[in-house]
Structures are given as C-alpha cells and as structure tokens.
C-alpha cells in the first residue's frame, strides 16, 4: 500500500494557505467591528481649552474695567458678588474667587471647574493672590 494521497479535487497546501488567509481576514473583520461596539464619540467634542481660558480672563478684565477690583476689602465683597452674579446671569456660569471667598454660586451644588487663573489684587491694602475660577 503506497502513501496516502489527498482526496481527489483537493490541494492540501493550497487549502492550508487559504485557511490562514481566511483566519487573518476574519480577525481583521472583527477588529473593524470594534468602533461600533465602543460608545459613540461626541461629534461636538471640540478642543476649547484656549477659549475657556479666554473667557476666564475676560470675566476678570470686565471686573477690572468696571472698577470692581479697586480698593477691595470685606465691605466691597458684596458689590463684587453682585457683579459676578450679573456675569453669571448673562452666561449661566459660576465664578469663584478663592482667597477672598467670593462667588456667585453659593448653593452648595457640585460644580465642574472649566478653567482657573491665578491673579493678584490688593485686598485690605495688601497684595493677595486670588485663584479666579470659572465653572458650570
């Protein structure tokens, strides 16, 4: 009895090659399905980091131009909070001035801070560093 021959109509080496190629293409196909399985990316997910910093700088500049940062002390904090409230009313944003405990959002809700600047102002006749933050 001679060595076994492959069944008629089949080339064993060719079939192995095709099976390897099939396996590779199947893997590629299932990998290509992964974007559909992942959560969809928000199309409005823009990089607005510079813009958020500009907004925070704008708010500080508005306070400065309106004279709210002049002669700061405990008595003028109320006026400052009213100005921040006006800006918050226009935009729906919250402003926080850490260092002098001033804000237009005192409800106690958790806010997400979108940008923060380090500023210096004269408070009670002395230089004081204030972290000026903007949040939602």
């Amino acid at each position: 009895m001679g060595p076994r021959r492959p069944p008629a109509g089949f080339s064993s080496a060719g079939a192995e090659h095709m099976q390897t190629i099939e396996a590779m293409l199947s893997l590629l196909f299932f990998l290509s399905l992964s974007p559909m399985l992942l959560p969809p990316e928000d199309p409005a997910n823009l990089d607005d980091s510079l813009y958020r910093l500009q907004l925070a700088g704008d708010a500080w500049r508005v306070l400065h131009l309106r004279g709210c940062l002049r002669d700061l002390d405990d008595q003028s904090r109320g006026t400052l909070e009213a100005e921040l409230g006006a800006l918050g009313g226009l935009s729906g944003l919250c402003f926080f001035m850490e260092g002098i405990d001033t804000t237009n959002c005192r409800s106690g809700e958790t806010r997400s801070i979108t940008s923060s600047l380090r500023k210096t102002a004269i408070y009670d006749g002395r230089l004081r560093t204030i972290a000026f933050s903007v949040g939602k």
Partner: protein
Amino acid sequence: MTRTSRHEGFVSFDALFSLVPITIMLSYSMQLAGLETGYAAERLAGQQLFDKLVSAADYTVDSGAVVRGGGVRYPGWIEPGLLGGGYTEKLEGMEGLSSLYIGMVEPEGGYRMCIYRFVVYGAEKAAGRLFVCGS
C-alpha cells in the same frame, strides 16, 4: 492520463468557496474605513470652524472694535459702532468663512456655530457679551 494531472493547479473547490466570504469581508471593511474617514473629516471641519471663530473674537475684543483714545486702546471695551461698516465682511474674507456674524445681540439662528466673549461697552462700561457666529 494520470489522476494527478487532472487536479493540478492552485485553484480548488475550497479556494473558490472561500473567495465569497473573503470578498464580503473586504467590502465591508472598506465601507467601514470610508465611514470612519468621513467622521474624522467632519470633526476636523468643526474644530477648524471653532478655531476661526475664536481667532475672530480674540482680534475683535483685543484690537479690532475696541475703544481708543489718546493713542491708547482698551482691550475688552467694545465700541459697537465699529462692528459695522464692512468690519465683519472683511474678517469673514480673511478667515475664509462662508458667513460671519459679530454683534452684541445673540442671533436667532442660521449659523453652524456660535461663541461669545465677555466685554464692556458704552460710556457706562456696561457688562455684556460679544457674540461671534459663523458657518
């Protein structure tokens, strides 16, 4: 004629049957790649538009439409009258936008994207927002 000579060649029944699913899978993968490319192009166009609006707003608030006096300009203090007279059209051409709106009043609609900047305006330096919208 021997049996082996009738079955020479790479093409076999197995290969022929395999070609159908391979073709389908390749076609689907190429369609998916095309879709992903389209989404990426859309995201890039949105980011470009946003960056242009930010640039136009920054120029307007820092220099383009600000109050000037005594050789000094006041960034953040807008002179609303300077926003007319072709100012917006000039910026629109420079930025390569199909439409641009810059004003103190939020427009009703008709623009793909809008941003705003906090400014003061008028002699009383009233606090307000400068809207920059475009498509």
